[in-house]
């Protein structure tokens, strides 16, 4: 027979400490997209632009994500050769919201803004995201450097890597549009 009394005692111990220390339930928003844009443009963000998802861009997105984005245009912020993007991709179950800054065709910042998956949360730490710094594209849509994964978080790693590739590609399309 399951020992209910012992179970109850341990359950109390297990649950009390974190609940006491927790001020409120969290929704795992590490930084809002608005704050990210504000920060990466040093408090003076430009007006947002919109990149319409043309047939070519749609195909390029599909090549990377293996599905459509489901939007007709993407908002981005651009100033002095830098562009900032807020992109989402599902790891295993839920979307990972990521802020990415591309500077002159190379990744400057990758930051996880909202993480909703039940595992693989390590991707939000700089020890993982800093690997993308200075990465560019080769062979149209591949990163020119390898990214070390995280054991047990393969799907989250794949999702963030795809978003980094996508941001680099969209940066080029946005640049062409302006030229």
């Amino acid at each position, binding site marked *: *027979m*399951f*020992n209910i009394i*012992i*179970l109850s005692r*341990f*359950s109390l111990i*297990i*649950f009390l400490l*974190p*609940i006491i*220390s*927790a*001020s*409120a*339930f*969290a*929704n*795992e928003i*590490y930084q809002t997209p608005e704050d990210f844009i504000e920060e990466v443009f040093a408090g003076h963000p430009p007006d947002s632009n919109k990149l319409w998802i043309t047939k070519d861009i749609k195909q390029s997105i599909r090549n990377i994500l293996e599905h459509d984005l*489901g*939007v*007709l*245009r993407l908002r981005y912020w651009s100033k002095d050769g830098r562009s900032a993007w807020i992109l989402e991709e599902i790891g*295993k*179950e*839920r979307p990972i919201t990521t802020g990415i800054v591309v500077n002159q065709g190379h990744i400057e910042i990758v930051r996880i803004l909202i993480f*909703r998956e*039940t595992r693989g*949360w*390590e991707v939000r*730490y700089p*020890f*993982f995201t800093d*690997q993308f710094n200075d990465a560019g594209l080769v062979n149209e849509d591949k990163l020119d450097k*390898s*990214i*070390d*994964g*995280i*054991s*047990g*978080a*393969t799907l989250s790693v*794949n999702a963030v890597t795809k978003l980094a590739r996508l941001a680099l590609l969209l940066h080029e399309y946005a640049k062409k549009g302006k030229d």
Partner: protein
Amino acid sequence: MDGNYIIFKQFNRYVTNIMLMIMVPVSTMAEVPSSEEMWKIIQQQQKVIEELKAKLEQTEHKVVATETRVEETAKEVEAAAEAMEQSGTGASTAASWADKTTVGGYGELHYNSLNDDNNLTGGNDDLDQVDLHRFVLFFGHEFNESLRFFSELEVEHALAGESQPGEVELEQAWLEMDLTNHHRARAGLEILPIGIINPTHEPNTFYGVERNKVETEIIPTTWWEAGFGLIGEIAPGWNYDLIAHSGLAIPTTGSSAFRPRSGRLKVANANDQDIAFTGRIRYTATPGLEIGVAGQYQRDVTGAADLFAIPATLFEGHIDWKHVSGFGLRALYARWDFDDDNSPVPGLDPENVNADTLDGWYVEPAYRFEIPGRVPGDLGVFARYENWDERNQITGAHRFEEFSRWVLGMNWWPHQNVALKFDFQNEDADGPVDAIFDGVNLGIGYQF
């Protein structure tokens, strides 16, 4: 051409004519019309100027109207785009529910061609079979941003039912609530966080057609129990799990006595289990590297129904390293310690079947690389050496013996979520055992 520009040119022409007339030389005055005629001409031209002015104003109005319409059209396009995007991402109630519900799964099909290298003992156990070993569907639902549900439903060996080889199993069904950004509480039917394969067992994530024997016999993967606990992180890259859960109820007699794998009641009308506690610390702060240590304590691993009380502890430690160069290394050690019977009338001794300590370990170097040329995906080659304790299955002399196995093989990933596998295995045992399997395995696996 721009309408304003044309009108401006006409207007300019008239003004030029007037200026020319005024500047006519005196010598030609004789041919100049009378003042009445001049007045007439001026009046006619004034009329033309006014008509042109009116046309110019009209054109300006049209330009303004056109600009307004362009702006309105842009707004309409924006509104239409937003409406289309919303309809595609769950604006309606039904879509909103679907947006919060996720479906996934994995599966693996195996072909085993194995010879029993020990035919003289326990008969011929050769194996030549094809088997849809696992077909699994995930269902998850997010009630709100802090509370979610996840489940995993599995069909093993394709055909379930009475006298059929397979079974339908619910391997996960839990609720999870965020407590803070770093801590979560989870309750329900949950896979225990021990080892590498038990928590992450999708076939495209590991080498070899069959799961390794250490994480089958010592850690009885797939191992789930009913429980509740906490998961989270204590520092970046330092993760913990702490769970109170239903324990094993291992048999104390028969051919499976003290076999951990046979003690799983799978939360199916599971009576007579004692409580167990499992904890794990996992380090992942170096990309590509995971180091994990797990421990479990159970006060009575034989369950509460019998007269015996055998306390048991399980220790497990592992490293899983995937270097950016493609080199990978997995190594794991796991060990059960079954204590003496501490019931009021002790009558059971695990040592009688060589089961006071059961352990196993493996080491698996591998190398994965992108296939050059037109063949898509990655290829990985690996070698694995396993060593573990298992029942020998010899009638009348049931006890645990030490087995070892070499597995050499390769995985081809045409897509990161799909793997085709091939391996060759060679087994051995230190003592008398029923079967030693040598041969080849083929498999395909996927997840989505």
